[in-house]
């Protein structure tokens, strides 16, 4: 198995706090890889390092044979990595359609503003069509002119995902996509993730607290606590791991 994406001995510090300590994981292409652990374990920090919002003091992040640490944040999506956010980072004052258009930024040539009128309009139309396709696929097309901030929470989460998907990523980082959703919605999310991975071949890293979802969709699970990797393996193996039960499942299983 050659990994599409691997994290090698990552170390990250906030002030005096060691957030990640020689953390490593490998993600196989086309797989759904879950990253679990209690609050404050460092899961979002991993994502933020991949997004290049923070810089680790040690280790490396490699995607498709290429180190990400040399790249600025906005280049990450151009390489094929898109992400959603734990608390939903929407562009609140923009419309739903505009949110998805922003997600398409990496596919729009940078000099577009300087193109002559007709060609610019054609390019813009093309972008709008692509955005609408994405919205349609996720069932948000009817809201395309609504202001994103006015959507209900569930739809905001879908929109966050739509924005990420619009960039046609090869690797998708999902930060707690199921948080705050109802059972029925979680079930639909389950189907969607499997669909994305199996049909469209998108590799997914999933940070999630909802174990029902993790156990159902993940091909592999990495468990993280206090910045350490506790264990890694297929869901069934991880479920029974004593450290996991103690550190994590024991508390969250009731949720």
């Amino acid at each position, binding site marked *: 198995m050659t990994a599409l994406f691997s994290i090698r001995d990552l170390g990250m510090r906030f002030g005096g706090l060691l957030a990640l300590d020689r953390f490593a994981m490998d993600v196989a292409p086309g797989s759904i890889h879950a990253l679990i652990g209690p609050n404050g374990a460092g899961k979002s920090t991993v994502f933020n390092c991949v997004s290049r919002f923070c810089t680790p003091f040690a280790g490396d992040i490699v995607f498709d044979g290429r180190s990400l640490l040399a790249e600025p*944040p906005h280049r990450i999506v151009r390489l094929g990595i898109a992400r959603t956010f734990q608390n939903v980072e*929407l*562009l609140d*004052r923009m419309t739903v359609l505009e949110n998805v258009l922003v997600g398409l930024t990496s596919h729009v040539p940078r000099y577009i503003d300087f193109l002559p009128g007709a060609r610019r309009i054609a390019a813009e139309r093309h972008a709008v069509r692509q955005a609408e396709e994405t919205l349609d*696929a996720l069932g948000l097309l009817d809201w395309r002119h609504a202001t994103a901030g006015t959507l209900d929470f569930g739809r905001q989460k879908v929109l966050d995902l739509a924005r990420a998907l619009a960039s046609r990523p090869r690797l998708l980082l999902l930060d707690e996509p199921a948080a705050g959703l109802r059972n029925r919605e979680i079930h639909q999310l389950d189907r969607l993730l499997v669909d994305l991975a199996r049909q469209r071949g998108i590799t997914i890293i999933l940070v999630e607290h909802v174990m029902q979802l993790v156990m159902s969709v993940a091909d592999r699970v990495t468990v993280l606590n206090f910045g350490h990797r506790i264990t890694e393996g297929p869901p069934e193996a991880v479920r029974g791991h004593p450290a996991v039960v103690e550190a994590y499942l024991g508390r969250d299983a009731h949720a």
Partner: protein
Amino acid sequence: MLLSPLLAWVVPEYLLYIGNVLMMDAMLALGLDVLLGWSGQFAFAHIAFFGIGIYGTALLDMRAGVPFLLGMPLSALLAAAIGFVIALAAIRLRDVYLALATFAFALSMQWLIRTWDSLTGGPDGLRIAAPALFGIVVGTDRRAFVPMAMLLASMLAAMLHLTRSVLGRSLAAIRDSEHAAAASGIDVRRSKIAAFTISAFCAGVAGGSYTLFGSFIHPDDLGIWQLVQVLTMIVVGGSGSIGGVLLGVGLIGVLPELLRLAPAQWLVWQELAYGLILMLTVMFLPLGLRSVLRRNLRTTVPPRTRRGTPTMEHTAP
């Protein structure tokens, strides 16, 4: 626009002056809004760029014989260039530090103008010679009105273009969430620098336009209080929208003139009233008065019938 030549001949000069000032303020506010309303950065340097526009245009004309049509763009470019350099240095700072650094920059620029006597006239102020446009000497409110209207119209057109551009969308995205913008492939740093530079350029143009009807400038006119006035206009009207900014400029710009109708002993409380207006607006109308006007025009409620096959369904929580 078509009416403006006509207006310029029949209206008393006082009203024309107010009109010219409002148009200049509109350019100033539109420029500041590129920074504040679009990209969400809070900076005080704008008033300094305005000053560079005024002093640059006037001094180029008077000392070097550079005509307005060349001198004004040159000064605006100078403002933009300085803005670009400041942006390079300051954009990496957190919000508050950006505000403080530009606050210090604006005040030191005012100090420089006051102290550099030999160039700027220093504390005596600078008399501005009336510039000529195509051989016609302007310099009065009547003659400046049409050129001012044309300048403002071009800036509005440019702003409209900007709102529809990818850069405009990127700035709006940065304003709402820097993280989402960066994760979507927007070069946040580059866009912010662009916004800062464009904003400085607009302030330079606004400053240059002042020389069309203003005959005197003093360093005292370039203080933080003047910037707060512009800020009030944007906040009250509604930041992040051209219509909102124009609305705010109209309301706040006309307010002191309307107050001339009030009894003289009320005037002392003006400053308090401005503070109150500013606070009440941010408290109750965070999107400005524009949001009140638009509430009935545009609905954000989703339609009842939906088409397409939803992959995920949601009901309101």
